[in-house]
């Protein structure tokens, strides 16, 4: 596709999704992406050089993990950039697919009974797509749907799963006629839907916010930067937490759940992630100290997500979601931090930094 037709197509997508001429990507977004690209590039080079060295100062196992992590990040980066190229619709679809896959891993991991089959069908093929369709509609629903009224679908997508799906699931299981461990089974499916679909869907919902500075002043940036900022900070928080636990970790939080997460790691990660966020505040509508605070919140939520998923995995007796069904890297392991951070980040941004 030539450059001109690509632009035309992008404009058509914008028109279809109702972006009223607002800039999709600004220079600052490009700089943010370039910074991440550069850091990943340097880290990859360091990894390659270290691998070539005969005598290592660090363990080879750690280096292998480091290089593996880097490959995963490169993949995430590439997928996200690809999504950004496809504009708002592309990003929403992308996150929808990620949710679908994560939910798949979640339900595979948690045992369900025969009687849950049709409920699961609804969950996978009705509620998950519906949530993302509602996110896609957002504030810009087409005329024929709203019939001229001003409708923000936020009102619907923020309650659809926690209220309607949560009522539907137990009812549908009851109709299937199997009462064994009824509440437990309902809760499993509800939890999967809440974590993998509902929470994660707040990340693309960020694109819909009419962002302002906290004093109400105009902000001329791209929402994509804010979305990327969230994902980036959540990943940084995860790494820093592991690093701090390794360097200074003494008090393990819950050895039964996860032996490598320590209080030192959480606090250390909170502070250093805050500093990273503050350093990146130029990409967001947040002032440097606001970006720091937001990042600290993200770090805490990322920790909460990691702990929750660890608990679920312990209950099932697996180490990574990946080993239950071999060969997969375990998508859920990579995005648990974003899942938990996204709704809190969204609502803080909506409350303090948007005109809505």
């Amino acid at each position, binding site marked *: 596709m030539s450059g001109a037709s690509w632009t035309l197509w992008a404009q058509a997508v914008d028109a279809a999704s109702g972006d009223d001429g607002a800039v999709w990507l600004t220079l600052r977004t490009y700089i943010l992406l370039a910074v991440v690209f550069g850091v990943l590039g340097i880290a990859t080079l360091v990894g390659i050089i270290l691998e070539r060295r005969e005598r290592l100062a660090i363990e080879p196992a750690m280096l292998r993990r480091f290089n593996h992590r880097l490959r995963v990040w490169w993949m995430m980066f590439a997928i996200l950039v690809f999504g950004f190229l496809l504009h708002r619709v592309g990003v929403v679809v992308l996150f929808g697919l990620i949710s679908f896959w994560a939910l798949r891993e979640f*339900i595979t991991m948690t045992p369900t009974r025969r009687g849950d*089959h*049709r409920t699961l*069908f609804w969950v996978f093929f009705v509620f998950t797509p519906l949530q993302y369709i509602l996110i896609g509609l957002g504030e810009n629903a087409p005329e024929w749907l709203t019939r001229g009224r001003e409708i923000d679908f936020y009102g619907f997508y923020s309650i659809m799963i926690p209220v309607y799906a949560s009522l539907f699931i137990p009812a549908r299981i009851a109709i299937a006629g199997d009462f064994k461990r009824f509440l437990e089974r309902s809760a499993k499916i509800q939890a999967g839907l809440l974590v993998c679909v509902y929470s994660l869907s707040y990340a693309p919902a960020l694109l819909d916010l009419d962002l302002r500075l906290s004093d109400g002043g105009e902000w001329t940036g791209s929402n994509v930067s804010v979305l990327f900022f969230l994902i980036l900070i959540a990943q940084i928080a995860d790494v820093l937490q592991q690093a701090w636990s390794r360097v200074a970790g003494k008090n393990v939080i819950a050895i039964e759940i996860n032996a490598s997460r320590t209080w030192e790691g959480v606090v250390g990660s909170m502070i250093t992630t805050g500093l990273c966020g503050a350093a990146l505040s130029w990409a967001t509508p947040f002032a440097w100290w606001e970006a720091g605070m937001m990042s600290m919140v993200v770090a805490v939520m990322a920790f909460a997500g990691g702990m929750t998923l660890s608990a679920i995995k312990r209950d099932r007796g*697996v180490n990574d979601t990946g*080993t239950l*069904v*071999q060969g*997969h890297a375990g998508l859920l392991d990579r995005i648990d931090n974003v899942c938990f951070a996204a709704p809190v980040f969204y609502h803080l941004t909506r409350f303090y930094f948007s005109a809505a």
Partner: protein
Amino acid sequence: MKLTGHAIVLLARLLSGYTVRWVDCQPDTCQRVYFANHTSHLDAVVLWSALPRHLRAITRPVAAKDYWSGGWVKPRLAKAFNAMLIDRKEIKVHQSPIDLMIREMGDVYSLIVFPEGGRTSGEEMGQFKSGLYYLGKKRPDLELVPVYIDNVNRVLPRGEILPVPLLTCITIGPPIFLEAGEPKADFLNRARSAVRALKGDEG
């Protein structure tokens, strides 16, 4: 029919997101009988799709003729993955299902069989029917390869039409052979535990 075959493979891959593990066994074009536990209609499709492409061309799932020749869709589906339809009603001398299978497979094809006969609920494997024993007895050169199909019964359980796209795992284990003079019951038990042994070692 090639196109349908590819479409089925793609669909099976998307729907069941399977991973394939070859444990002490390698993909090979030598003649084999893959025998697996049977819990879902999708078993044969998923196992067939999980094989490398050059093996798919020479591997035929064995299915009941009376079931698969009815209607419009089923015969076409069966043809797309080159199923070997065996008549289980009209059994004559020299025309037993085993004779038919051996004749059909010639010196090219491998087979996929489900020795439990019917689908089980997925909790516990049923007893194996004796077909596998006779196959091994008449063609001692065949590699009998145990396969454990995990979680497919949750994708499409018995009596359901709509599949739920969970992740599944197919474990292909080391081949077994019929020992000289091994009694039928012993062999069938050994075959059954060979399949069940693949269930345990996760990770």
